[in-house]
């Protein structure tokens, strides 16, 4: 009887080791927060130009999330005739960016203001992203190397930042604020 129990225990241990080594769950690949402070050299808001109007400055975290099964769900996932557990967020990477919004070429906007489609006619363009600077990177949980790639492609990064701001209902606010500042300039100069 004892021998049988020992054999079963050994089998269970071998099975558990196999699960750990070869399965997609990788329960040991779980880290606490790892943080890297970055300085890309770009200085957001540091470019002083008389022709530039800053309307908003934002700190935006961009999250890359890895989904998976929790340790407490592993057994349930293996059992037959039991509903499979759903995947949850298990880790990822958080990258924080400084983003400056505003208008470049203020003088040109005013000079062309009275042309059709100019700011004097009330056609106020939305503020553009003037500068982006990555400041911080933090991996958490099962990151699976999510922090290894840093978005370098500016249009893609801009689209991702816009998406995050939209998700949190901030993008419309930033646009409205920018347009209001530009309207102030237009009213002062379109006479």
């Amino acid at each position, binding site marked *: 009887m004892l021998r049988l129990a020992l054999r079963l225990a050994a089998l269970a241990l071998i099975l558990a080791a196999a699960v750990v080594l070869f399965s997609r769950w990788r*329960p040991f690949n779980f880290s606490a*927060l790892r943080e890297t402070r970055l300085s890309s050299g770009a200085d957001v808001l540091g470019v002083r*130009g*008389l022709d530039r109007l800053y309307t908003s400055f934002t700190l935006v975290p961009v999250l890359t999330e890895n989904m998976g099964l929790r*340790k407490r769900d592993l057994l349930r996932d293996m059992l037959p005739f039991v509903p499979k557990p759903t995947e949850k967020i298990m*880790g990822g990477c958080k990258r924080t960016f400084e983003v400056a919004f505003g208008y470049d070429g203020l003088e040109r906007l005013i000079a062309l203001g009275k042309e059709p489609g100019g700011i004097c006619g009330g056609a106020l363009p939305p503020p553009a992203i003037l500068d982006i600077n990555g400041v911080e990177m933090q991996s958490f949980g099962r990151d699976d190397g999510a922090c290894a790639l840093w978005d370098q492609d500016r249009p893609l990064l801009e689209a991702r930042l816009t998406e995050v701001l939209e998700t949190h209902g901030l993008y419309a606010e930033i646009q409205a604020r920018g347009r209001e500042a530009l309207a102030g300039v237009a009213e002062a100069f379109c006479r």
Partner: protein
Amino acid sequence: MKIPSRFQLLAAIALAVLALLAGCRNGEQSSQRLEEEIRGLAVTHSTRVAGLTMDVLLTKIYATPHWILSDDIYMRTDKVSLIYGFELPEKAISVEMTGGQGVLRVRARNARGRISVNRGSLRTMTNYGDYRLTVNEERDGRVRPVIRDIDEEFNREIDRLEEKYRAKNLEAAKNNLHAFFSLLAARHGLKLSLEFTDD
């Protein structure tokens, strides 16, 4: 050529003096008019560019890994808006004529860093509904789990960010005012003298 009489001479001098006085008065009036016009424009519109809002999406992640027991994660995102800028009271804007050259003088007053803070919690996310927001602390010689004060941790982080970015934001607000008043002065053929004061 007929020599003008003493009376004619006196009348001519009096007329010249009157004309000069009238000219000065006209100059004064036009300078006053310009000052009023510019002050009106500036006070109405420059306030829209004198402030800069910093929006912070602050996400804090709490992960309590245990090599066997847990891989729980808790995330919370708050939105914070900090407004920085300068005050432009009506008296801070004046037009002076010196040596035939008009000078637009502006004294913007620092609004002492942030003007206001709006804050709200946007999203919390966890992979475990009963996530325990605790931290181990030593009390009376024993290590015990204590509930974390997340609000306090967020407040501390906001203070740190506010401190870090205050100078940069005020610099950008200065840039905006400089851009606005430079264009305004150039449009009216004036020189610009822009000062930023702390009083």
